[in-house]
Every structure is written in C-alpha cells, then in structure tokens.
C-alpha cells in the first residue's frame, strides 16, 4: 500500500534505515571514528545533497515516470546561481536562489509537456532535455569552468550549522516533512499514486492527469535545482558536469527506499533512508583500502542485494 504519511512507516520504509545503521556499526568495527559526531554530522550534510534531489525523483517515480534530466538541472542551477552572485550586482545576487529554483521548475514543466501532452516516454524525453541542457551550458560557458561564486546564504545552506545539526540536513528534513504533509492531505498525492498504478483508470475517473504530471515534474525540477544550489554552496563554485555523479545514486536511493520503479507504491520517508544508505555506503567504500574497480563492484552488489532482499520480503509477506 502507499504510505505517504510519516506516522505509519511500513517495513519497506524501515529497511534502508536499518541498513544505514548496520553500515555504520559494521564500519565502526574497522574504523572507530565512524561513531564520532563529527563524522556522522558530515554524513548527514552530504546525504542532504543527494536526499533533496531524490525527494523530487521520488515524486516522478511514484507517478510511474523517470526524470533523467537531473544531472544538468543540478549543473544548470549551480551555474546559474553562482553566475548571478558572481555578477556583483546585489539585486541579481539576492534573486540567485529563487531564479535557480524557477529554472528547475521550468525544465520540469518542459518535461511534463513532453510526457503528458506529446506522450513521449519520459525516459527518452528527459534524456533529450538533459542533453540539450548540457549543450546550452557549454555554449554559455564556452566549455570552461563557469565563473562565479556562491553567496553567503548558499554557503550557509550547504555548510552551516543550526542547533548543532547541518543546515542542509535540517532543510532536507523540513522540505520532506512539508512535502509529505502536502501529499498526504491533498488530492495531488492520491492522484500521484493512482496514476502510477493505472493512468488510464485515473483519467477515466475524471482526474486531470496532465496537470498532475506537470506539477510532479515541476516539483522534481525544483528539487534538483535546490540540490544544485546546495552543491554550489558546498564547493563555493559551479563546475561542468557537477550533476553527473548524482543521476544513478538518486534513482538507487528512491528504489532502495521502497518506491516501486514502476510507480504507485512508495513514499518520501523511505527515500530519506535510501539517501542515507547510499551516502554511507559510498563513504565507507571510499575509506577502505581497495581499488576503484572493486569499490564499484561492491557498491553494485550491495545495491542489488538490498533490492533482492526487499523483493523477497515483499513476496513472502503477500
């Protein structure tokens, strides 16, 4: 069943959290410093970058679609926000973040148009959009690393602390909670899952499905853009293809979080666990003294293992 409420976590949602805790405990056997507050705080902060992007991806995947334009929405938003700040104009600097979010939402609307109106499979349409965004970015920057810098707000959002917690993490949690409430209370949330299970039956129930698809992709675009702003704040700059390493981990985080890649079943709460799990796994593998090749192989195996476990458990439960 769909569980869009934080108050009713099901086993699907809990698995990635349990996995994340297990990773920390296993890691700490070899590296005791894994249990320090500094390390854990740092992991929460880095998870937030992936988590914010994955939050948007969850919405699109619940719908039964996929957004492959994530890398260059992330990159584009980062380039845009740092360029606006770097212009030196106070007003442009002030609107840097909203402008980047608007840019992401706009790309989402373009994605929604292709999927809902032109009826092109999202996998193809969003891939094409991603490619075009790459082209536009290269045209804009001439292929060099874009000039510009992050504003103080962006740096604070990415690296600051609030009540001892990383601001990025607090922001991520607040947004997830807000979005979860919105999905739980509004028709939009119900429509999302209904379309994911059966778009035809939902449309025949008199639901304006194109509007739902537009909104979902726009939200996802804005989330990816926020991820880009945070990454730019973290690195204090934007660089070409900074979003590229985020596409597959984003999808992995969503699916490990219990959301069905076919749409319908799942929710945002699980994605938090998925993002934590993926981030911790990457971090632990990177401190281990093994070659990159083995790191990739082990990463893939563990992801497959978790998914297989989820599938088998679900089968046993039904």
């Amino acid at each position, binding site marked *: *069943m*769909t569980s869009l409420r934080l108050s009713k976590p099901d086993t699907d949602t809990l698995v990635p959290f349990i996995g994340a805790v297990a990773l920390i405990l296993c890691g700490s056997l070899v590296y005791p410093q894994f249990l320090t507050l500094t390390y854990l705080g740092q992991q929460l902060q880095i998870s937030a970058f992936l988590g914010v992007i994955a939050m948007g991806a969850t919405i699109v995947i619940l719908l039964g679609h996929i957004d492959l334009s994530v890398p260059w929405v992330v990159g584009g938003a980062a380039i845009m926000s740092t360029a606006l700040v770097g212009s030196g104009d106070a007003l442009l600097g002030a609107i840097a973040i909203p402008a980047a979010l608007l840019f992401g939402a706009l790309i989402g609307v373009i994605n929604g148009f292709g999927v809902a109106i032109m009826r092109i499979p999202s996998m193809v349409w969003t891939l094409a959009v991603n490619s075009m965004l790459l082209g536009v970015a290269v045209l804009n920057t001439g292929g060099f690393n874009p000039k510009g810098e992050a504003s103080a707000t962006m740096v604070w959002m990415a690296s600051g602390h609030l009540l001892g917690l990383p601001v990025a993490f607090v922001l991520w949690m607040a947004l997830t909670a807000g979005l979860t409430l919105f999905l739980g209370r509004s*028709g939009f949330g*119900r*429509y999302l*899952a*209904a379309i994911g*299970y*059966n778009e*035809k*039956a*939902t*449309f*025949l*129930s*008199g*639901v*304006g499905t194109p509007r739902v698809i537009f909104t979902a992709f726009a939200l996802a675009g804005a989330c990816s853009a926020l991820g880009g702003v945070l990454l730019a704040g973290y690195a204090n700059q934007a660089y070409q293809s900074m979003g590229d390493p985020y596409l597959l981990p984003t999808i992995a985080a969503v699916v490990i979080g219990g959301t069905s890649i076919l749409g*319908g*079943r799942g929710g945002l709460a699980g994605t938090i666990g998925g993002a934590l799990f993926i981030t911790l796994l990457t971090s632990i593998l990177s401190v281990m003294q093994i070659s990159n090749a083995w790191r990739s192989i082990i990463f893939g195996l563990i992801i497959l293992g978790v998914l297989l476990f989820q599938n088998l458990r679900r089968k046993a439960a039904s």
Partner: protein
Amino acid sequence: MSPDQNPIVELVGISKHYGATAALEGVDFACHAGEVHAVLGENGAGKSTLMKLIAGVIQPTEGQVRVDGQPCTLPNPAAAVARGLVCMFQELSLVPDLTVLENLMLGAPGTGLGRLRRDVVAPARAVLARIDGGHIRMSARVADLSLAERQQVEIAKAITRNPRLLILDEATSALNASVVDKVFAMIREETARGIGVLFISHRFHEIEALADKISVFRNGRHVDTFRNGDYGYGAIIGKMVGQRIDDLFPPKRSTPPGDEVLRLDGFGWPGGIEDVSISLRRGAIVGLGGLDGQGQSRVLQGLFGLLKGTAGEIRIGGNPVRIATPEAAKSPELGIALVPEDRKTEALILDQSIARNLELAALGVPGVAAEDPAIYQPFTDALELKCASLDQPVGQLSGGNQQKVALAKWLALKPRCLLLADPTRGIDVKTKTQIYRLLRQLADQGTAILLLSTDYEEFIHLCDETHIFYDGRIVRHLSGDDVTAENILAATMNMAVSEASHA
C-alpha cells in the same frame, strides 16, 4: 458422409472455467467429416471458447477431447494443425508487418527451423483467385491490406494447410455478399471432398444457406444440435434465448419519465459513428445494443469527453455543451458519470484499496467530502459489497464485488446522467439482480441512465427504450411491446423483421 461414422473431433463432458466463471459447462459435442456445422449462441454463450479448445489454444478444465476416436490433448495450435484441425480466428492471426507471401508460408506444413516452403504459394494464389482475391499482391504488407483482403488471405492460408476440419470463427464478417457466396461455394466443394467445417457467424442467412447441422449454445451449455431446416427461425431464436428469469429484474416503473436531461443530435465521430440521435429523460433507462464494436461504446466515450473531433450536438438540460475531458464531464454543471467496460484496466486500480478507489472520482469535486466513507455507504450497502475492510486491495475482490466498487465510486457524485458500459458482463446472477434493483431505484429517484449491454434481457426487462447499433449507426429504435428478443436479435444482425414477429 453419414453422421453415424466416427467424428473427426469429439468433446466429452468438457468444462472450461476462468476463475469462478464457467465459460463451458459439461459440453458434449462432435464434428463429422463432410459436414458444415454451424454454432449459434449469444455473446458469452461459449462459442469462441469451444473453437479455441478444438484449435489447441486453451485447455479444458475438465473432460476429454477425442480426435478420430482417440483421447488426446492439444497442448498448442501447432498440435491441432498437425492433426488437421485448422482454425481461422475472429481476431485475425496474420502478422501485420510481414508480406502476404511470408504469412502464407509461416506455419505451413513442413515449415520449420528456417526452412520455408514455397510450394504453398501456388495453391494459395488459386484459392485467392477463386474468392475474388486475385488482385492481392504476394509482396504486399498485410498491414496495408483492407480488413476484407486480410480475411481473404486468412481463408487462403487456412485452406492451403490441408485441413480435415476447418474452423471458421466469424471468418467472413468483413466480406461483402458476393465474396461470401464464393467462399461458400468453395467450402461446399471442400466438404464434398470429405472435409468437416465448423463455423460461427452472427449472420443468420449465412447459416441457413450453408449449414448442414446447427448446434445452439447458451450460457456455456450445449442446448441442442439439429439438422438445418428442422426448426424455423423463431424456434431457433427461442433455443438461443432460453428460459427467462422473470424475478431477475425489478418491476418497471409505471410513471412516464420526466424532462429531457441529455440530447444527442446527429452525433458522429470519424472513427466509427455517424448521425446518432438519442434523447434521454429524467428517470429513464435507455439501452444501447448491437454486436460488439458497432459504435455503441463510442457514443458513451464521446459523451464522457474521450473522443476528439466529434460532429453534431450534445445538449444537457437543453443547453448545448462541449465535453472535452472526463474531468469536465463529471463536473457538477454536467453531472455525467461513466462506468467503463473493462473493470480491471479502466474502472479500477486493482493494487489500491477499496477506500482509495472509491474516493478517486469524487476527490476535488466541489461540495463532495470525498474522503468520508459515509458518502459511499448507501450504495455499497444497497449492492451488498462483501469485503474484509475498506483497506482491502480491490484486486482481491471477486468480479461482482469489483463492479460494485466501480459503480459506488461514481454514484456518490449523484450524477444526473449515468453511462454504463455493459455493467453486468461476466457477473453472477445474484450480483446482477442487486445491480438491476439499484439502477431501477436510481431511475425512480430521477437519474437518467444510458445502458450499453450485450444482454438483451436487460433491454426487455430493465430499459424503457432501446437503440440498436449496426456499423456505427442506429438501425432500430425499439420501445414498448416492440422490445422482444426476436426484434433485438434481428436488428443486431441488421435484418428486416418479419411481420409475423409483431404479433
């Protein structure tokens, strides 16, 4: 040619169940060499199931199939073809992207593992030439042929496989009369050579002209087999219709229907309906009948905003309206609801709970508390919905209970005009009576109901008037005493009704 000789195929005590529904029940049936054997029956009587069993497409749940007196199983169509049982199906079985030549060679005797035999081509050409298909080029892609040409290719393909029993399931539905005559002449010749022919057709005159023997099926049972000419038209229809269950239906209302709710004038759509005019009044139940795909379901789709580019006019409460989407159709201003034909893919989301399914149509409609289960309860109670809880996934319910959910989710919106696409197809009798009772009750309360059905009993006992469709048009409007099984069946086959039937 004596019917007493061993039959080619014999079915003994055959039953075929799909879940809880029985498509065939305890059927004994035999086809003999040198005979044209027609199978008659209503939609859902089990005719196609019978053909599929003999052709090896499906397996019986119970009973025995005998070929030449030997019990055997036909695990797949190839096994049936190997025994000389060749079927030409209602759903055309040609590969659209291959050429005529390639289709003729596919699965021809002796073909396999990359070996294609060209020697089937010459006889196939000869057959095509005989049935007015000589102009069909062997290199033409099947997808580019007309439906009639495809049927001609199908017939040629079937005949060149040297059948001992040729099964024709609505094989000539798209052919015009002169071509059909030629096909018949050829079939006659084949039977004279000792081939058996088993065929389904909804065209009564074809059966009269061609059949030696007629078998009637009803509700999955073999009712009777007799020689062509033993019974008159009326008696045969009587066998198809069977005994009426009178208390299945609630009594009709006596008061006349009220003001006009919906009016269609010259309604048309390029994809298959033309000049359809229907008037629907408050409290009336109007039936839409006809064979499958004659345009009646398109009318419902058009009224629910699912067709683009419709012609003609729709009036609701006297005002002309344009219905662009289902969302517009369900708005309180129009108040139209459609319960679609296919419960599992169109009406419901099987993976979601009953509660979620119930609220989906009502969510976001102003003035409706969609998330309050109480607004659905009067309808689920009236229909006696059986479920563990409202959190149970709809996919776990029986077909009848699923249909109850599909109805209740729309009824909570209190539609002015309820469009129903065959709401009782494949549903048990008890649920049918519950649905009929609720529909009558809704009509008495003023809902206008447009009921598409494949069960003419519903037209006779539930509807106030009925429009029969044929080839995208309304060919007959029946009301009052004219609504008889005979008139309905005659109209669905677009045949003139004999004067005697008005008695």
